């Protein structure tokens, strides 16, 4: 039957442009076959690939999938405690709770209770303004992987309330962590230092420190950070792709708590030193008309035999607890602990015992004396004329006592603290031939000035001015050359000489024993009550060899003893009646105050006792007011009283060196 357009031969009716119906022919079948072949090829490709993925590499991908949803969290290790020499706790840890909000977990649109309800209720529990809470939470909505800490250090009642009603607080979490705790309050704040989140530099330098770790930033916390820090643990937790936890944290390994660091500090002595310093400043303020500005100071108590530091007091101070937990710049500024707020509070963060730089004044005279003896310009037994003033090249140099007029030997000169006596030594040393070098500077350095003492918490080196230094430091030609006046000023520890109280304590320890110690704070490191390391026990170094030298030191010691016991002595009023024989030297140094554009007295007292077998060196300095004998000596006495458990009565002299 012929095919008719539009007929049943094709279900397509005739088309005007199609002469004959468009039939499926052999060619079409062939092409359909090609299409089928392509389809089969593609499906075979898929199946083969699927086989490779699911069957051949299945286990490998399964492992990746399992790792995919595990987040590892560093578990903060409890930081080691810091204890004093008698194992009294100075710093420990306290568990605190902070409330965090996970933005992604908060109720979404249309949920009951609403996000607003939850936050409002939370604000009520935490006693913060709801508006502040909304703002803080909203500000962090772009970062769903990290929670917003809405309040640090919440109390037990608050954390329990939230934990017990966790269903009412979706997205709210209470996290616990350790913060530093200071049971002794303000004790040794600058020496103990503080901890803070690791800085970029610290993370770069130490591969075991990771962002967010707490690292000691200053003082003992920084110096012994390696012991204190402990080893963080690792905990794993299953999370979803949004980072939300889906299981409990499982710790492996557990964090290793930090070691206990035992310091050579004696908490009782430290406490007394701090109080004595405060009292001394008060005494200084009241002691004279121009002493109103006495506003800071430091006391160092050192064992002259092994260098262990028993007390490092610095005033003004602060409560170290301000650095615990959530630290804000505003909080620190209130305590004068930021760069901009420091001046108004006279820099409480500065550890003046190790980093306060002062001219030593008359406390430096023993060094001048040794230098003069050793360079052969002084016979310690010979008498020099102590006068009220000395004129050198037309410049007048005053004695602190303008009425002085007597011929005295070295011990008496030290006892009286006769400035003109030492001016003459300065003159003589200046007049030495060049081959002799710079004896005062040389001996100052031998006694440890102008360089770091080696104490673990770090200190300033100070400055011993030399001719070379003077040439480099000053611009004006008349200032750049070393003149007789420079030697004269240096002979009584004035002008450019800068020392720290710790350096001076070490120096006086050197006079007391003939040996220079390395001051140190670390007594031992303990782990699980066992000592794993002892503090540095560098043997004290002899200052100069030979019995000849120790005889010369004896003359100095005699002078220092006369200063505290002879009727003419500058601090005998204070120390004369103390049952333990103490020897020491006052000093009243002038230091220029940038703030007030004038000189202020820096009151010093440095000494040691008992004189026959020295056990303790104390150096006290009071800034910007007072005299050595009236302000610093009584403060130092307090420390000796506590150390020897002895007391005495005395009346303060009116004005001394």
């Amino acid at each position, binding site marked *: 039957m012929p095919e*008719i*357009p*539009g*007929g*049943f*031969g*094709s*279900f*397509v*009716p*005739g*088309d*005007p*442009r*199609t*002469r*004959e*119906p*468009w*039939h*499926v022919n052999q*060619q*079409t*079948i062939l*092409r*359909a076959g*090609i*299409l*089928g072949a*392509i*389809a*089969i090829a*593609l*499906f075979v*490709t*898929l*199946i083969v*690939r*699927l*086989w490779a*993925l*699911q*069957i051949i*590499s*299945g*286990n*490998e*991908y*399964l492992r*990746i*999938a*399992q790792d*995919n*949803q595990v987040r590892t969290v560093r578990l903060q290790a409890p930081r080691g405690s810091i204890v004093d020499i008698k194992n009294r706790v100075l710093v420990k840890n306290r568990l605190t709770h902070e409330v965090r909000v996970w933005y992604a977990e908060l109720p979404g649109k249309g949920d009951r209770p609403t996000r607003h309800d939850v936050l409002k209720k939370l604000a009520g529990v935490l006693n913060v303004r709801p508006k502040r809470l909304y703002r803080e939470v909203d500000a962090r909505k772009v970062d769903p992987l990290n929670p917003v800490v809405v309040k640090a250090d919440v109390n037990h009642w608050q954390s329990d309330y939230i934990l017990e009603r966790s269903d009412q607080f979706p997205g709210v979490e209470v996290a616990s962590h350790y913060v530093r705790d200071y049971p002794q309050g303000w004790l040794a704040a600058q020496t103990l230092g503080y901890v803070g989140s690791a800085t970029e530099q610290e993370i770069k330098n130490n591969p075991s420190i990771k962002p967010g770790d707490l690292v000691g930033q200053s003082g003992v916390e920084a110096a012994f950070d390696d012991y204190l820090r402990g080893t963080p643990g690792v905990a794993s937790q*299953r*999370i*979803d*792709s*949004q980072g939300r936890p*889906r299981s409990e944290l499982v710790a492996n390994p557990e964090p290793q708590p930090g070691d206990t660091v035992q310091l050579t500090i004696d908490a009782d002595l430290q406490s007394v030193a701090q109080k004595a310093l405060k009292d001394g400043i008060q005494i200084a303020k009241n002691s004279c008309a121009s002493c109103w500005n006495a506003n800071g100071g430091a006391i160092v108590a050192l064992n002259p035999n092994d260098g262990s530091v028993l007390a490092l007091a610095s005033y003004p101070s602060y409560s170290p607890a301000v650095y615990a937990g959530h630290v804000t710049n505003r909080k620190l500024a209130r305590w004068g602990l930021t760069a901009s707020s420091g001046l108004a509070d006279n820099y409480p963060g500065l550890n003046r015992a190790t980093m306060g730089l002062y001219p030593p004044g008359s406390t430096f005279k023993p060094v001048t004396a040794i230098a003069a003896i050793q360079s052969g310009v002084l016979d310690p037994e010979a008498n020099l004329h102590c006068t009220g003033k000395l004129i050198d090249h037309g410049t007048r140099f005053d004695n602190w006592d303008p009425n002085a007029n007597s011929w005295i030997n070295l011990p008496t000169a030290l006892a009286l603290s006769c400035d003109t006596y030492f001016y003459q030594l300065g003159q003589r040393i200046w007049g030495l031939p060049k081959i002799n070098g710079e004896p005062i500077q040389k001996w100052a350095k031998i006694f440890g000035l102008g360089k770091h003492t080696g104490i673990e918490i770090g200190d300033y080196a100070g400055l011993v001015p030399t001719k070379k230094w003077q040439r480099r430091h000053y611009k004006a030609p008349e200032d750049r050359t070393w003149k007789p006046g420079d030697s004269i000023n240096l002979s009584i520890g004035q002008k450019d000489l800068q020392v720290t109280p710790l350096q001076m304590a070490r120096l006086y320890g050197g006079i007391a024993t003939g040996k220079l110690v390395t001051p140190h704070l670390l007594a031992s490191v303990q782990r699980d009550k066992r000592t794993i390391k002892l503090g540095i026990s560098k043997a004290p170094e002899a200052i100069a060899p030979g019995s000849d030298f120790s005889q010369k030191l004896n003359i100095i010691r005699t002078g220092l003893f006369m200063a505290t016991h002879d009727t003419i002595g500058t601090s005998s009023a204070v120390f004369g009646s103390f049952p333990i024989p103490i020897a020491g030297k006052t000093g009243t140094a002038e230091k220029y105050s940038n703030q007030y554009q004038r000189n202020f007295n820096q009151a010093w007292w440095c000494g040691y006792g008992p004189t026959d077998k020295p056990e303790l060196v104390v150096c006290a300095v009071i800034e910007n007011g007072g005299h050595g004998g009236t302000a610093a000596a009584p403060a130092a006495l307090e420390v000796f009283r506590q150390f020897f458990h002895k007391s005495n009565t005395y009346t303060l002299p009116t004005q001394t060196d």
Partner: protein
Amino acid sequence: MLESARPLGTPLAKTRELPLAIILRQVDWLLVIGIAALVGYGLWAVAGVTGHEVPGQPHYYLAKQELYAGVGAVMLLLAAAFHPDLYRRYWRALYVVAILTLLLVPLLGVAKRGSRRWLQIGSFQFQPSEFAKVLVVLALAGFLAERGRALRDRSTVIGVLILVAIPTALVFMQPDFGTALVYAAVTAAVLLIAGTRWLHLGTLVAATLIGAALLVWILPALGVQVLRPYQTQRLTGFIHPSFDPNHATYNVAQSKVALGAGGLHGRGTIGSTQTVLGFLPENHTDFIFAAIGEEHGFVGTSILLALYLFVVWRGLRALAGAGDGYGAVVIGGIVATMVFQVFVNVGMTMGIAPITGIPLPLVSVGGSSLIANLAALGVLIGVQMRGEGARGRLR
């Protein structure tokens, strides 16, 4: 015969429908069962994949998808009920509808994640480019039927290319590169079945390859950016997967992990962490195959691929039995659409095909895709049940 009395060439001659009983007896029930199995498998898979997606509403996506499947079934029946001749005669109208809806998208469309592909009708969003897939097949077949004598002419090929270029350009601008690729594949299949000369076909394939190279490598190297950088990266990411500065292939990496982790038997609907914990993105739409792979393993995925292949086989069988060139071209186009989409989608989840937003036909969650695919299969069945066999029965 009465028909022969009808004047030749009446453009709108009434189509004669075959008796219903014959048509129904002729329906390829295996094809229908295959399609139903695919849809059923899709619903089962969606239930497993999306059970945890919306907290408290385990059937949120399943219920939607069931509704779409219902609408799709109605569309399938409707599409099959219309005589294919209607599609042939009114191909221009169908073409215009496709172009118009695609044109409306940039004007009124709803944008999601940087592309504007959807039209909002009430609370319902639909994606014209999905429906345009089948409309383009019908339009091209209609155009070819009109030029039944000139199929081997170059002008016919050029006409087809012009016809397909307009919707392709429109979806390309959405931007929906994947659908544009589908149109290109469909064109190739339609020309193949229609009997275009091998020379023309070969030229076209070569031109496409050169064009792709230009688009992806040569023009950017010369400083002309036709594709956005992320598009280039998605297209070429599967060639060098480790080069991924913008995480363009993050999805694929996670998808491969999901598939691989599924292993032979799968990790179940609860233990499939990639899917359940949200590491696998788009786990119920573009990457549902990977989710199925993770939950049901190689067993599940190979059954799914086998179902597709089964439907393709029955489709090609219907092509051979269409008896009529127009019907054959329509079936070829629809089958090719399906094969191409399955390959590109599944290949993407395994990292052997470019990353394009092509859904997995009949399985991915999404109303437009499911309904449009079922409608297309309705057209296929409509042609099949009126094919040679039916006419043979009548005779």
